[in-house]
C-alpha cells in the first residue's frame, strides 16, 4: 500500500497514480455544488472588486479604478448586479437544503457526520488540531467536513444574510425606512462595510491558505473544480469518512470519473486568476487600511 501522504505530495487530484493498478477517483462534490462555488466566488470577487473602491474611496487606486471603469455609476451597477446573482445563488441553495432536508427528509442534512452543522467532534477536532500544531498530540482524523470548512460555510452563510440585508436596506432605503428606525440607515453602512471587509480579509487570506495554499494542497485544491479526488488524497484528508465508507461497503458507490486534462487546465487558469485577483485586492485593502 503506498504511503498516502507521498501521493498527495506528488500531485494531488491531477497526479498520476503511483501505486499498482489504475488510479481511482472518488466524488466529493456534485456538479451543482461545483457550479454553485463558481457562481459564489465569481460574484464575490465582483462584489469585492467593486465594494473596496467604495469603502476606500479616498485611496488613489480606488479613484484610478473608478475612473477607468466609468465612475461610481459603473461601480455600483456591477456591485448591484453581482449582489443579485449572489442572492439568487443563495436562494437556490436554501431551496436545495429545504427540499433535501424537509421535503425529502434526507438523513444527515441537519445532523451527523455528513452535515454542515457543527457538533461536539468539531470542538474536539479544533482542540486536537491545535495540540498537533504545537506537537502535543496526534493529528485528529477528520470526517467529510472538517471544522474549518464548516466555519467557512457558516461565515459565508451568515455573512450573506447580514451583508445582503444591510445592502438591500441601503439600495431600497426609503422602502426599508417604513419599518426601520432612522438610525438603522446609518448603522447598515457600518455593518455592511465592516462585515464585507471581514469577509474579504478572511476569504483572501485564511480561506485561500487553509484550502488551497497550505503544503498539503499547494498550489490549489482542485476538488472544488473537478468534483473528485484521488483515493490517496481522500484517505489522507478525510480518513474518518473513508473508513466509514469502507466499513459500510459503500466505497464503490462513490467512485467517480477521472477528471479530463483539459478541464483541469481550464480550472487551473480560472482558479489561479481568482486567487490572483483576491491576493491583489487583499494587498490593496491592507495598504488602504493601514495608510
Amino acid at each position, binding site marked *: 500500500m503506498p504511503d498516502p501522504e507521498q501521493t498527495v505530495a506528488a500531485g494531488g487530484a491531477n497526479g498520476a497514480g503511483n501505486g499498482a493498478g489504475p488510479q481511482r477517483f472518488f466524488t466529493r462534490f456534485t456538479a451543482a455544488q461545483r457550479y454553485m462555488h463558481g457562481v459564489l466566488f465569481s460574484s464575490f470577487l465582483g462584489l469585492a472588486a467593486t465594494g473596496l473602491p467604495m469603502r476606500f*474611496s479616498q485611496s488613489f487606486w480606488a479613484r484610478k479604478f473608478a475612473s477607468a471603469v466609468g465612475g461610481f455609476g459603473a461601480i455600483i451597477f456591477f456591485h448591484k448586479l453581482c449582489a443579485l446573482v449572489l442572492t439568487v445563488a443563495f436562494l437556490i441553495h436554501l431551496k436545495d437544503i429545504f427540499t433535501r432536508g424537509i421535503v425529502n427528509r434526507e438523513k444527515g442534512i441537519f445532523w451527523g457526520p455528513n452535515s454542515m452543522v457543527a457538533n461536539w467532534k468539531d470542538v474536539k477536532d479544533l482542540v486536537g488540531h491545535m495540540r498537533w500544531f504545537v506537537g502535543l498530540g496526534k493529528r485528529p482524523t477528520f470526517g467529510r467536513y472538517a471544522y474549518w470548512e464548516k466555519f467557512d460555510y457558516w461565515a459565508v452563510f451568515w455573512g450573506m444574510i447580514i451583508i445582503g440585508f444591510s445592502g438591500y436596506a441601503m439600495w431600497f432605503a426609503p422602502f426599508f*425606512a417604513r419599518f426601520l428606525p432612522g438610525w438603522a440607515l446609518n448603522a447598515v453602512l457600518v455593518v455592511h462595510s465592516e462585515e464585507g471587509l471581514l469577509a474579504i480579509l478572511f476569504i483572501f487570506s485564511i480561506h485561500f491558505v487553509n484550502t488551497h495554499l497550505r503544503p498539503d494542497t499547494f498550489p490549489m485544491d482542485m476538488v472544488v473544480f473537478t468534483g473528485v479526488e484521488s483515493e490517496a488524497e481522500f484517505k489522507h484528508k478525510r480518513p474518518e469518512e473513508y473508513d466509514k465508507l469502507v466499513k459500510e461497503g459503500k466505497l464503490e458507490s462513490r467512485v467517480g470519473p477521472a477528471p479530463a486534462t483539459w478541464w483541469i487546465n481550464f480550472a487551473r487558469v480560472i482558479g489561479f486568476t481568482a486567487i490572483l485577483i483576491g491576493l491583489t485586492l487583499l494587498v490593496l485593502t491592507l495598504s488602504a487600511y493601514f495608510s
Partner: protein
Amino acid sequence: MKCVSTIALALGALLFAAAPLRAQGNSDCLACHGDAGMQDASGHSVSVDGHKFDASIHGPLQCKDCHTAIKEYPHPEQKAPVKCETCHADEAAGLVGSVHADGKDHPCTSCHGDAHSIFPKSDPKSAVYPLNVPRTCGQCHGTEGMAKKHGLASVYPLYIDSIHGFALSKEGLLVAANCQTCHGSHHILSHTDPKSATYKVNIPATCGKCHAGIATDYEQGVHGKAIAAGHLDAPVCSDCHNAHAILQPTEAVFRSQSTPICGNCHKEKFSTYRDTFHSQLGSLGGYVETARCWDCHGAHEILPASDPRSPINKANLVKTCGRCHTGANESFVQYQPHANAHNRKLNPALYYIGLFMNLLLVSVLTFFVIHTILWLIRQRLEQVKRKSTEGGKHA
C-alpha cells in the same frame, strides 16, 4: 471718454472747414514718415502708416496735436514722450494710485496698442474690444516672468479655460466677464486695497453686477450676512468658485473639487460626511451624482437648520431628501448625514454597532491568522520529515 468724443466731434466739424490744411499738414510729415523703413538715430522705427492712421480714432487729428514739441521743419529729434493725458485727463486721473500707475512700465500703448492705429473699444480691431481684452492683459499676466517679478499668478491660462473664458473665446459673448469687467480698466487696485472691486468684501457686489439674483440670495444667507457684519473668514464668491478658473458649477469636476472647499472651514462636518455613503461614492466621480454639501444646505442662500426656510429644517427634510430619494418619509429623514460613529454620546447605537463589528473582525482574524500560521509550520515540518525518511529508504 466723454472728452474724447467731444474732441472728435469738434475736430470732425473742423474737418469740413479746414480739410485742405489738415491734409496738407499731415502729408508734409508723411512725406518722410510714410517711408516704412524710416528709423531714428537709435534705430527705432519712426515710420507711420498714413492709411491706418486715417482709419484710426485719431485719424482727424494732426501730427502736431500730439507731437507738440515739433513746430517746424526740419525738426530736432523728439525727446519728450507724447502726453495722452492732455486730452484723456479722466483716464490719466484714474491711473494715479492704480497698480499700473508707473507710466514708464505701463505706457497707454501697452494696453491700447500702436499709438498710430488706436480704435474705439467698440471696434473689434481695438486691443481693448471686450473679446480682445484677455489677450491684451495676458501679454503680461499670462507669463511666468510677470509672476516672478511681481509675485502674481499667471492668470490668463486659468481665465481662458474658465466658464467666462469659454463664453468669450468660444461663443464670442460680449457680455461674458473679461478682465476689465471685474478689475476695472484704468483705476485698477490691488485686491488688498479696501477700495478695490476685488477686495474680499466687495467681491459679492462685483460679481453681482452681472449675477444679480445670486448676489441677492447670497446676501440673505449666513455667509453673506457674516461678510456684511465684517467677518472676513466667511467665504465670498471667489472662495468657492475661484477667481479666474471658474467652472460650470453643475460639472462633475467642479462638484467633486468643491466639497473639500467647504471642508476647509467646516472641518468636523466634512470629516463625518466623508464617513457616509454620499461621500464614498461622490469621491469616485462619474456620471451619477450623490449629495454634496450644497445639494442639502443650498449654495448661496445657506440658512441655519433652525430657520424654517432652510432646506435642512426638520419640516423641510422630507422634501429635501426626496429630491433624490423618491419615497423618502419621516423615518427615512431621521438618517444622519453627518453621523459620527466614534462619538458615543451623540450616536450611541452607531458607536456600539461599530465597536462590535470591529471586535468581531479583529478577533476572528487574529484567531485564524495564528491558527493558520501554526498549521503551515507544522505541515511543512511533517513534509520535510517525510522527505528525509524517504531519502533514507532509497539511499
